[in-house]
């Protein structure tokens, strides 16, 4: 027994220390899932179509190009968004320097006045361009902010998944009390998520509609977020996806805001 224990200690030390040792299987799974969903490749680009459907079935549409460049896995990322629709926002560009720790830096470029407007840091749970997706849904919530436990196995979209319950370590960092995620065994992508309030009532539901493998990276090319309280939902579809990173991290700046790359102005 004593020998077994010391062997175990040696194995743990060899394996790289306490971080690995403390990461339980649920944490490991959620970290892998976060990397697969938010940090695939070193960055990439996609043309995004967003459809907002309200309770009466009335729809609003937005179209934009989105560029991403990772500075470090599970760390800082730069995002650039160039709107092509609707007409009143066409040409508007949005730049985010996402900081894994602390507030993000954000800028908006309004071409009609050639204005680069810096935007005050916002609550990450606030809506992204009026949709049911929050900023956090778009740019990711780090798994270390939550405690995770595996609660079962399930099948979603005909695929084998592991069901994980996540609870915020600090309740103030989220508008939900806990979240259930169904993580695809094969791709590690979240196929479904449900967000619950303190009373245990589901308030939001996420569904990955369609998974495709692009340049070797499994990608959720269609994603829907349901706001169950307001009975409305938003679907985003990704087209022209590329994981070849066109921009260097330090090129996500005012020059890019004012000069959209030619291929994205279509």
């Amino acid at each position, binding site marked *: 027994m004593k020998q077994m224990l010391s062997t175990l200690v040696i194995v743990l030390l060899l394996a790289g220390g306490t971080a690995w040792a403390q990461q339980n299987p649920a944490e490991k799974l959620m970290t892998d899932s976060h990397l697969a969903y938010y940090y695939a490749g070193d960055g990439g680009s996609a043309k995004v179509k967003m459809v*907002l459907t*309200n309770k009466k079935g009335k729809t*609003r*549409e937005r179209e934009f190009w989105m560029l991403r460049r990772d500075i470090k896995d599970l760390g800082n990322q730069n995002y650039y968004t160039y709107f092509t*629709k*609707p*007409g*009143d926002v*066409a*040409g508007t560009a949005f730049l985010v*320097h996402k900081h894994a720790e602390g*507030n993000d*830096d954000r800028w908006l470029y*309004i071409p*009609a*006045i*050639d*204005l*680069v407007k*810096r*935007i*005050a*840091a*916002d*609550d990450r749970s*606030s*809506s992204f*361009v*009026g*949709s049911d997706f929050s900023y956090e849904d778009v740019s990711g919530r780090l798994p270390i902010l939550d405690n995770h436990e595996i609660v079962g196995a399930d099948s979603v979209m005909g695929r084998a998944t592991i069901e994980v319950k996540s609870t915020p370590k600090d309740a103030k960092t989220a508008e939900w009390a806990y979240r259930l995620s169904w993580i695809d065994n094969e791709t590690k992508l979240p196929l479904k998520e449900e967000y619950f309030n303190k009373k245990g009532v589901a308030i939001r539901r996420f569904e990955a509609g369609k998974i495709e493998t692009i340049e070797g990276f499994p990608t959720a090319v269609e994603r829907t977020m349901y706001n169950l309280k307001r009975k*409305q939902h938003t679907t985003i579809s990704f087209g022209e996806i590329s994981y070849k990173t066109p921009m260097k991290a*330090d090129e996500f700046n*005012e*020059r890019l805001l004012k*000069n959209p790359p*030619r291929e994205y*102005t*279509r």
Partner: protein
Amino acid sequence: MRNVLIAMMLTLLMSATAWSQPIIGGFVEANQAVRVEQNEALDAVENSDLGEREYPRSEFRAQLTVRDAADAASFFLRVDVVSEGTDNSGTAIDLREAYLKLYLLDWLDIKVGRQVATWGTGDLIFANDLFAKDWEAFFTALDDTYLKPPQDLLRLSFYLGGITAEVATSPHFTPDNLPDGTRLSVYNPFVGVAVDVEMAPAIDEPLRSLRNGEVFARTYGSMGSAEWALYGYKGFWPTPQGATTTGMLYYPRMWSLGASYRRPVGSMLVHAEGAAYISQDDPDGDDPMIANSQLRGFVGTEKSLGNDWTLGGQYYAEYMLDYDKYQAGLRPGGVEFDELRSTVTVRVTKFILNQNLQFSGFAYWGLSDSDWHLRPSISYKLTDEVNWTLGASLVGGDKPYTMFGQFRDNSNVFTRVRYSF
């Protein structure tokens, strides 16, 4: 030299055969502003157009934008066609932007032609942004973006590692567009009261010659999340700050240097900016007919309160140099400004209904001049294409010659319906 440039540009345009399909956009809108208070200056004139008296703005406006891009160049055109309802001037065409951007080198962008330019850190206040402003549009129902009229500029941006240096030059001076007594009454300093267009003071504009051009410069960079910038300008006072003995106003020469800084502090965004305006034709401040040199600056903050609420505030001050000489040159009983004049601004914004309905308020309060300006508005996106705005431009002040006091009795409410495509 000029021919060489033109030849270069033509060669470039022709070699860049890969122009894509042009992208077309724009809007049509109706703007209607109605006075909410009596204006004696405009009413006094018997022949004044009744329409203008009641409606500072009543127009249909259509805007067309065309953009296209090739490998190393892009082109942008923005044209407004305006049909004014209150007079017989018919339909006017306003070429707001027509520029070419050239990306010839990794470290240089060139933007040439008619364009709008903005820089600095202020929210509807300015120190180093000496590009022209359209105050008439600002006080009469047009969208906030019309505060910036276009200018003919050659703008060069040099990207030098983490630092960017920009120079913009104009072959001629573009002054601010001030109310001239048609849509709004205007203060006439020679008679000391607000007047209409027929009584408005004559303003002498500098000749359109290269000698009367303008140069704008900026260098900027960042340190982490903080942004800094240095600015320079050489040209003219943007408003007619000089008077002749023959009773005309004119734009004296000035140059300026300044700096700005902006960074987040916790969840707040703070900015600070300052500039020295040097009155070139009156450097010592002893000519009472020309504005003295000034220091201008402001500090401000903005914070998101969550739930789609945003709150902002700024403190702005102007400090007149050589104040003793200014006082010595005053006429007895004439207009006298304070040495230090300050203004506070507040902005509140709230979105509801998936950000389709916006409530917005912006207020200026002149602490030294006892004048004020309120800009409340409600804007609703009925569909992705149709936006309806109801707003007001309310102004007042104790004295008829201050920044906002000069437009008192010109308060109006307005409505705007815009269809974008």
